[in-house]
C-alpha cells in the first residue's frame, strides 16, 4: 500500500474504527480474550458441572460422603490411620468427574465451588468496576465542566475517600456493613448480601478514576472546539455529551479492564478475610480462605482459586494494555512504523 493510499484509508476512518482495527490485530488482545472467554464459560456452566458432572451440592456440608475411586468407595474425609491416628484429611484431587480437585474441610467438591466462586468473583468484579467507572465519569464530568464551588465540593469529597488507604477503607466499611446491612433510600441490602461488597468496592476506587477524568475535562474545557461550542450558544448538555465526553471516552475504556481486575482482586481479599462473600456462597477469596487450613495436606484447595485469580487479572491487564495502545495514536504510530 502506498503512502497516499494509506493516508486516504486512515483519514476516511473514525478514530474508534482505527482503534478497533488495531486492537483486532493485536495478538495480546486475542490471548487475553481467549483466556477470559474460557474462564467466563467455565463460571457460566458451574450449575451444569455441579449438577450433571460432579453431582454434588457445593454449598452443603458433606462430612459423611463417600466417593468411588477405581471401584473403591472412599470417605471424602479420611481419618488418619498412622501414628496416633490424629486428624481427618479431606480427599485430594481425584482428577475424575467427582472431586476433581478434591474436597475442602466440609467435604464439598472444590472444583464445583471453584466454578461457582468464579461466578461471584467475576460478577462482583465487573459490577463494582462498572459502578466505579460510571460514578467516576459522572463526577469527573460535572466537577471538571462546572468548576467553581461544585468542583470544590466534589474534589474535597474525593479527597476524603482518597485520604484512606483503599484496602483499609474497604475493610472498615465491610466490617461495619456486614453486621448492620446497608440502606440506600428505598434499597436495603441485608448483612450477608452480595450487593455490599459490590457497593463498597465500587465506591472506594472512585477517586482513582474520577481524578484523572476531571483533569482531562478541565483541559478539554479550555480547548478551541469547546470554546467554539460555548460561543455558538450550545447547551451545556450538548457540550458535555457531544464535545467533551467523546474525548474522554478513550481514557475511560482503558480504565474498564483495569478497574474490573482491581475490583476482582479487592473482592477476593475481602472474601479471604471473611468480610466479602458470605458462606455458604463461594468466591475465589473464600475458597483460598477455606484452603488456608489445608495448606500442608491439600494445597490445591488454596492454589486453584489463586491460579484463577492470577489468570483472570493477568488477562484483564493484558487486554487493558492492548486497549490503551489501540487508543493511543502515539503508540499506534510506533507500532505501525
Amino acid at each position, binding site marked *: 500500500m502506498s503512502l497516499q493510499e494509506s493516508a486516504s484509508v486512515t483519514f476516511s476512518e473514525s478514530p474508534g474504527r482505527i482503534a478497533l482495527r488495531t486492537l483486532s490485530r493485536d495478538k495480546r488482545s486475542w490471548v487475553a480474550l481467549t483466556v477470559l472467554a474460557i474462564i467466563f464459560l467455565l463460571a457460566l456452566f458451574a450449575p451444569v458441572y455441579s449438577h450433571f458432572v460432579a453431582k454434588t451440592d457445593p454449598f452443603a456440608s458433606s*462430612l459423611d460422603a463417600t466417593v468411588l475411586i477405581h471401584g473403591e468407595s472412599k470417605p471424602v474425609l479420611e*481419618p488418619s490411620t498412622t*501414628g*496416633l491416628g*490424629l486428624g*481427618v484429611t479431606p480427599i485430594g484431587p481425584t482428577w475424575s468427574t467427582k472431586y476433581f480437585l478434591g474436597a475442602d474441610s466440609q467435604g464439598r467438591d472444590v472444583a464445583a465451588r471453584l466454578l461457582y466462586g468464579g461466578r461471584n468473583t467475576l460478577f462482583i468484579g465487573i459490577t463494582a468496576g462498572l459502578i466505579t467507572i460510571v460514578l467516576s465519569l459522572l463526577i469527573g464530568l460535572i466537577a471538571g465542566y462546572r468548576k467553581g464551588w461544585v468542583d470544590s465540593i466534589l474534589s474535597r469529597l474525593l479527597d476524603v475517600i482518597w485520604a484512606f488507604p483503599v484496602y483499609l477503607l474497604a475493610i472498615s466499611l465491610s466490617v461495619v456493613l456486614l453486621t448492620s446491612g446497608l440502606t440506600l433510600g428505598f434499597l436495603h441490602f441485608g*448483612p450477608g448480601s452480595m450487593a455490599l461488597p459490590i457497593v463498597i468496592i465500587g465506591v472506594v476506587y472512585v477517586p482513582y478514576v474520577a481524578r484523572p477524568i476531571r483533569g482531562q475535562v478541565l483541559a478539554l474545557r479550555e480547548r478551541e472546539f469547546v470554546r467554539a461550542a460555548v460561543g455558538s450558544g450550545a447547551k451545556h448538555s450538548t457540550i458535555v455529551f457531544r464535545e467533551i465526553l467523546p474525548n474522554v471516552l478513550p481514557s475511560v475504556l482503558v480504565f474498564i479492564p483495569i478497574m474490573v481486575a482491581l475490583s476482582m482482586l479487592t473482592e477476593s481479599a475481602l472474601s479471604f478475610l*471473611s468480610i466479602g462473600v458470605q458462606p*455458604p456462597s463461594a468466591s475465589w477469596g473464600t475458597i483460598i480462605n477455606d484452603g*488456608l487450613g489445608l495448606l500442608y495436606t491439600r494445597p490445591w484447595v488454596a492454589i486453584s482459586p489463586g491460579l484463577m485469580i492470577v489468570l483472570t487479572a493477568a488477562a484483564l491487564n493484558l487486554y487493558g494494555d492492548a486497549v490503551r495502545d489501540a487508543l493511543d495514536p502515539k503508540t499506534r504510530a510506533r507500532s505501525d512504523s
Partner: protein
Amino acid sequence: MRRRTMAISTIAAAALALSMVGSTSGSAADGKLAPYDKAHAGGVVKLVAAAAAGTIDPKVNYTGQYWQLFQATYDGLLSFSYGTGKTTFEVVPDLAEALPKISNGGKTLTFKLRKGVKFSNGKEVTVADVKASFERIFKVSSPTAGSFYNGIVGATACLAKPATCDLSKGVVVDPATNGVVINLTAADDAILSKLAVPHAVINPASAPSKDAGTTLIPTTGAYMFKSYSPTKSLIMVRNPYFKEWSHDAQPQGYPDEIDYNFGLTPTAQVTAVENNQANWAYDPIPADRLNEIGTKYVNQVHVNPLTAMWYLPMNVNIAPFNNVKARQAVNYAIDRAAMVKIFGGTQLAAPVCSFLPPNFPGHVDYCGYTKGGTPEKPAKAWTAPDLEKAKALVKASGTAGQPVAIVVSDDDVNKQMGVYLQSVLNSIGYKATVKPISGNIQFTYIQNTKNKVQISVTQWYQDYPAASDFLSVLLGCQSFTPNSDSSINMAGYCNKAIDAKMAKAIALGVTDPTAANKLWGAIDQEVMKDAPVAVAFTPKQLDFISSSTKNYIFSLQYKMFVSQLQVK
C-alpha cells in the same frame, strides 16, 4: 457433716479421676507431685497462642487459658491439689492452715488464715484481704458471683447492689486470731470446690473495685505477672516474696520466667514448637497438622480426656429458639459424628448429647435426640441425626424460613463448626448465616442479651467435679443476668420448677451424694426435654510440647501445669 462433705469430694473425684488417668511424666505413683528438684530450676518457658484471653483479673476472667496460669500465681483459702490421677480433684488447704471446720448443718465454715504469706508487693496477706476479696467477687460482677457464691450470707444484697457490697455477716474475720468464718444461707455440697477456683482467690484489699483489665494485681503464688499486653504478650516471673508453704497447693515452680506470646496463627504455633522456638502451643492444632504431629512427633504429643463439652446454646427468649420445637429440631439435626470429624476425629473427641459429660458425677448414658430416640424415650447413646424429624419439628414450630445467625469464635475449628451448622440449619428450613467474631470477645459477647445472639458455638470445661457446675451454673436461673457480659446461662433458660429441683439436689448432696447424683441425672434428662442447648461432643485435650520441654504433668482440673515444666 464435715466428713460427709469431704466424702462427696473424694468419691466424686476418685471415681472421675480413676476413670480418666491422663498421660503425665512428672508425678509420683500416688498421683502426688514429685518433690522439687532444684537441678531443673531456671530457664524461660515460652507459650504461644493466637490471642489473649481478655482481662487478667482472676475474679473476672473465666477462661481455661488463664485459669491455667492463675493456679501458679494466685491462691485462695483452698485450692485444687497439684496432683494427677486420683488426687487431681482433691481440695487442699492453701492460704488456710487446714480444711475448714464445718458446722451448723453445713452452713458455717471456719478457717484459720496462714501467717507469713506475702503478696508479690511485699505486703502480708491479712484477714481483711480475705473479706475484701469475697466482696470483690460481687463488686467486679464476677461471672460466677450469682452461681457459685450466691449462698454466702449477704450475697443477695451484693448481687443487687454490687458497688456497696458488704459481707460483714457472710465473711466474718478476726484479725486477732487470723480466723475467717464463712456463713452460708444453705448447705452446699460443692462449696469447698467453689472456694478452690480462681474466682475465690485472695487479692489485696486495695485491688480495684472494678474489672482490673490489664492492670496487674499482686499475687501470692510462685509467680507474679510482670507485664500484660493483650495484643502482644503476658510475662510471668518468680514472685520474690514466695516461700513454698504447701507442696500440694502451691509448689515452687521450675522456670524463672514464663512468656506467653500472642498473635501466632495456630499453624505457626505448631511450627514454633516443632522448631523448639516455643515450649507449648495453646490453640487447637490445625486439622492439616494433626496427622503430621501424630506420626512424626509421637513422644511430644499428650492426649488426655476432659470433663468438658462443645455445645450450642440457643437463646430461649428470642425467635426462632423461643419455640421448644425449634430447639429440639436442632438437637435432632446435628450430626455429632460430623462435628467430631471437624474437631479432629475420634481420637480427639466423642459424640454425646447428655448435658453431664461421661464419667462425671450424675452422668447417665442416654440420648433423646438421635435416630430411634425421643426425649421421653431416650436411646442409650447417640447413633445418627434424624433430619426428617428435625424438618417436621421446624415445620410444626412455624419458624421455617426465619433468619438465624450463628455466632462463632474466629479460629479455624470454630468457624468450620459454624459453616457446618449453617448447612444443617439451612437444610431443615432456616436461613442461616455465620458470624465469626474474635476469640477475645466471643465468650462474653454471646452471654450478653443486648447482642441478641440466637445460637452460638461454645465450650464448657468443668470448674469443679460436681453436676451443679454444669447444670446449675449453665442453666440455672441465677446464672442468667440480662444485659450483662457475665451471664453464663447463655441460653437465658430459667425454669423455676427445674431450678427448685437443682436446689434440692445441691442440698441432698450434703447428706446423700449418691441420691443427689441420681437426681442430677434425672434433672439432666428433664432439662434436655426443653432443649435449651444442643450438646455436640466431649473433647480430649491435645498438648503438643517441644522436644526440649520436660516434666509434662496433666491435671483434669487445670490441664498442663505450666509452672512445673522444665526447660533446664
